[in-house]
C-alpha cells in the first residue's frame, strides 16, 4: 500500500507540474464581502463605492508586476501593502515577473482552459502591447476607471486616460503614473535650444556629440516618433492603423527621412552606426564620446549623478513642441475572484499621497493633475528636492502619444530610408 501511494503521489505531482498549477504562494480566496449582499461578479456596475469597499474588506489580491526594480518592489510590497491593510483590510500579495508578457500568457492560458471565475491574477501592472493583447482577447474587467473616487484628480479628457499606444482604453485599465521622454545633456559643454529645427542646427555645430538609440529600441523609436509629429505636422493622424494611413505616411514621411539624413553627418560616427539602447548610449556619454542621451525615466538623470556615473553638470530638456510620453496602468483580468479589492487598490495608487510618493520614492511622474490636489500635497510636490537635473514639473511641454499599429511601419521606414541609405 505505501508503495502504491508513492506512485500515486508522484503521478499527482507530475500532473500538477504539467498543468502549470497555481503558484503555491497564492492564498485561498476569501469571501468576506458576500455576506453583505452585493458582489462585483454578480451586481457590477450597480454598486456604490461603499459596497465595493465592503466586499473588498478581508480579501487578498495577487498583484502581478514587473519585479526588476528594488524601489518599485518596496513601494508595492511594503508601502502600499501597509496602507491597504490599515485602511481597507486588504492584503497585497505581490507576484514578481520578469516580463509582463508572462502574465498576459497566464491569463490567456486560463481563459483557454475555461477557468472563467477563479483566476489566479487579480491585478496587473501593465501598458501598451500587453494591454492591447488582453483587450483584443476580451479578457479584461471594466469599464471601471470612472468609478474610482480618485478619478477627480485625473484629467479624463487627456490622451493618457483615453488611449494607450493608440488604442482606446474604454475604462479597462486605470492610470498609475506617466513618463515623458527627456533629453539629457552635459551643461558644462552644451547649451542646446529647445526648438527642433534649432536643436539640429546646434547638433551640427557640435558634430559627433549627438546620437540616438537605433529603433526598434523603445527609446529610439520614441525619439523619432517625436520628430515624426514635428516634420509631418500631423499628430492624431498616425494613431490609426497602417491600412488607413499608409498613403498619407508615404507622402509625408519623406520630410522626416530627409531631416534625419541631413543631420546624419553631424551625428556620432557620422550616423553610420547607432547605439543599441539607452544603456549603450549612456556608456558613450560616460566615456565622453557623446554629450547627449535620452530617457523615459524621469528620475534617472538625478540617480546617475548621485551614483557618480554622470557629471554633476548633466541636465534635462524637452523640445518646445512636446515629447513622446506614455503612461502605465493597472488592469483587472476578467476572471479575478477579487475584483472589488483590486479596484480599491487601483484607486489607492491614484491617491494624492501615493502620487506624491510615486515621485518621491521611485522617481516616477504622477498621473494626476497637480493643481487639483489638496493644497498641502501641492506644497509637498513643490517642496520635493529632485535635484537640478530633474526637468521642472511645471515646465513640461505637450505629451505626444506613442504610436500603436503604425510603430513597426515607422521603424522599418527608418531602417530603409535612414540607416541603410
Amino acid at each position, binding site marked *: 500500500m505505501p508503495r502504491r501511494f508513492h506512485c500515486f503521489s508522484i503521478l499527482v505531482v507530475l500532473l500538477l507540474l504539467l498543468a502549470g498549477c497555481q503558484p503555491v504562494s497564492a492564498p485561498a480566496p476569501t469571501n468576506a464581502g458576500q455576506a453583505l449582499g452585493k458582489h462585483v461578479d454578480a451586481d457590477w456596475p450597480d454598486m456604490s463605492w461603499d459596497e465595493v469597499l465592503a466586499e473588498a474588506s478581508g480579501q487578498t489580491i495577487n498583484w502581478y508586476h514587473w519585479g526588476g526594480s528594488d524601489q518599485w518592489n518596496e513601494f508595492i510590497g511594503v508601502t502600499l501593502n501597509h496602507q491597504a491593510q490599515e485602511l481597507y483590510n486588504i492584503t497585497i500579495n505581490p507576484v514578481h515577473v520578469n516580463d509582463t508578457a508572462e502574465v498576459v500568457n497566464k491569463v490567456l492560458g486560463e481563459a483557454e482552459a475555461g477557468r472563467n471565475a477563479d483566476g489566479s491574477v487579480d491585478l496587473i501592472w501593465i501598458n501598451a502591447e500587453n494591454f492591447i493583447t488582453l483587450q483584443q482577447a476580451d479578457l479584461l474587467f471594466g469599464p471601471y476607471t470612472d468609478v474610482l473616487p480618485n478619478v477627480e484628480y485625473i484629467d479624463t479628457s487627456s490622451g493618457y486616460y483615453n488611449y494607450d499606444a493608440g488604442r482606446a482604453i474604454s475604462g479597462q485599465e486605470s492610470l498609475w503614473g506617466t513618463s515623458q521622454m527627456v533629453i539629457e545633456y552635459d551643461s558644462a559643454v552644451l547649451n542646446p535650444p529647445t526648438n527642433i529645427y534649432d536643436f539640429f542646427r546646434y547638433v551640427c555645430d557640435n558634430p559627433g556629440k549627438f546620437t540616438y538609440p537605433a529603433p526598434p529600441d523603445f527609446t529610439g523609436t520614441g525619439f523619432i516618433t517625436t520628430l515624426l509629429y514635428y516634420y509631418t505636422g500631423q499628430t492624431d493622424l498616425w494613431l490609426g492603423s497602417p491600412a488607413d494611413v499608409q498613403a498619407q505616411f508615404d507622402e509625408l514621411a519623406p520630410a522626416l527621412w530627409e531631416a534625419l539624413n541631413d543631420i546624419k553627418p553631424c551625428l556620432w560616427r557620422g550616423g553610420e552606426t547607432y547605439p543599441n539602447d539607452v544603456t549603450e548610449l549612456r556608456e558613450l556619454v560616460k*566615456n565622453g*564620446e557623446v554629450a547627449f542621451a535620452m530617457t523615459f525615466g524621469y528620475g534617472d538623470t538625478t540617480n546617475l549623478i548621485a551614483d557618480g556615473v554622470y557629471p554633476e553638470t548633466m541636465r534635462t530638456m524637452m523640445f518646445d513642441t512636446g515629447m513622446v510620453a506614455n503612461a502605465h496602468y493597472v488592469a483587472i483580468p476578467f476572471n479575478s475572484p477579487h475584483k472589488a479589492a483590486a479596484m480599491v487598490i487601483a484607486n489607492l495608487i491614484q491617491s494624492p499621497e501615493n502620487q506624491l510618493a510615486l515621485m518621491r520614492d521611485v522617481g516616477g511622474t504622477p498621473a494626476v493633475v497637480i493643481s487639483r490636489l489638496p493644497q498641502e500635497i501641492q506644497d509637498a510636490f513643490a517642496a520635493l528636492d529632485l535635484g537640478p537635473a530633474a526637468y521642472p514639473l511645471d515646465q513640461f511641454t505637450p505629451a505626444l502619444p506613442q504610436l500603436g499599429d503604425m510603430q513597426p511601419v515607422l521603424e522599418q521606414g527608418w531602417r530603409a530610408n535612414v540607416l541603410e541609405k
Partner: protein
Amino acid sequence: MMERLRPYLMLSPALLIIILFFLGGLGVGLMRSLNYMPIIGLTEPNLDAYVGILTDRTFLRSLGLTLYIAIASTAISMTLAVASGLLLRRSFRGKQVMTFLFQLNLPIPHIVGAIGILFLFTQGGFLARAAHAIHLIEQPADFPELVFDRYAIGIIAEYVWKEIPFIGVVVLAILQAVGDEYEALAQTLGANRWQRFRHVLLPLILPGVLSVSVIVLAFTLGAYEIPFMLGRSFPQALPVLAVRSYTDPDLNQRPQAMAMAIVITVLSTLLILAYMELSRRIVRKE
C-alpha cells in the same frame, strides 16, 4: 537480442535529446521557413521567405559580412596559433609563465572579452585616452574606429583573442606528440629551417589544426552576442539580423527569420564539408 539493443538503449537519453531538440527544432524551423504553419491556417508550403531574403539587399550584405568575419577570424587565429605554438615549443627561460599567459583566456567567456574590447578600443576607451594623454592625438575622438567599424575590426579582434589559445592548445598537444626526431632527422639530411617547417612539421600538425579550425569557423558563423555588442547597426551579422526579424512584432517576418536561420545552418554545414574535403586532400597529397 538484448545484447544487440543494449548500446542503443544506453545511447537513447543522448539520442532523444538530439532528435527531440535539435532535429525537432530544425524541422519546425524548416516548416515555418516554408510558410507552413497549419495552426494559423498556412497549409500550402512555398519558397516565398527564401525568395524574399535572397533578393533583399540587407540580407545579402549581412551574409557577406558574416562570411568575411568568420573566414578572417579563423584564418588569422589559425596562423597566429600555429606560430605561437612553434615558438612556445622551444625551451627558453620563462617558458612556463609564457605558456600559462598564452592559455590564460581559455576559460574567459566571449562576453567578457567583448566588454574588454569595448573598454580598450572605443574612441572614449582606455587606449584613446592614453593616446590623448601622451599627445599622440588631439582629442580622444581622433582615435581610429576599431569598434562598431566598417571592417568589423572589433569583432574579429575579439574572436582572434579568444580562439588563438583554443587552437593553440591543440597545436601544442600535437607538437608534443610529434616530438623533434623527425626534424632532427630532416636537419641531418640538410633541410633548412623553412624546409623543415614546410615539409616536416606542417604536414604533421595540419590535420589537427584544420579540424579545430572548422569548429572555430562554425562557431563564428553562427554566434550572436559578439557581433551584437561590437558590430554596426547596418549591415548586421546574419544571426543578429535573424534574431531581429524573429522578435519583430510583425508576425509575417517569422518565416523570413526562420529562413535566415536555415541559411546559416546550411552555410555552416557546407563550409564544414568543404573544409573537411580540403583538409583530406591536403593530407593525402602530403
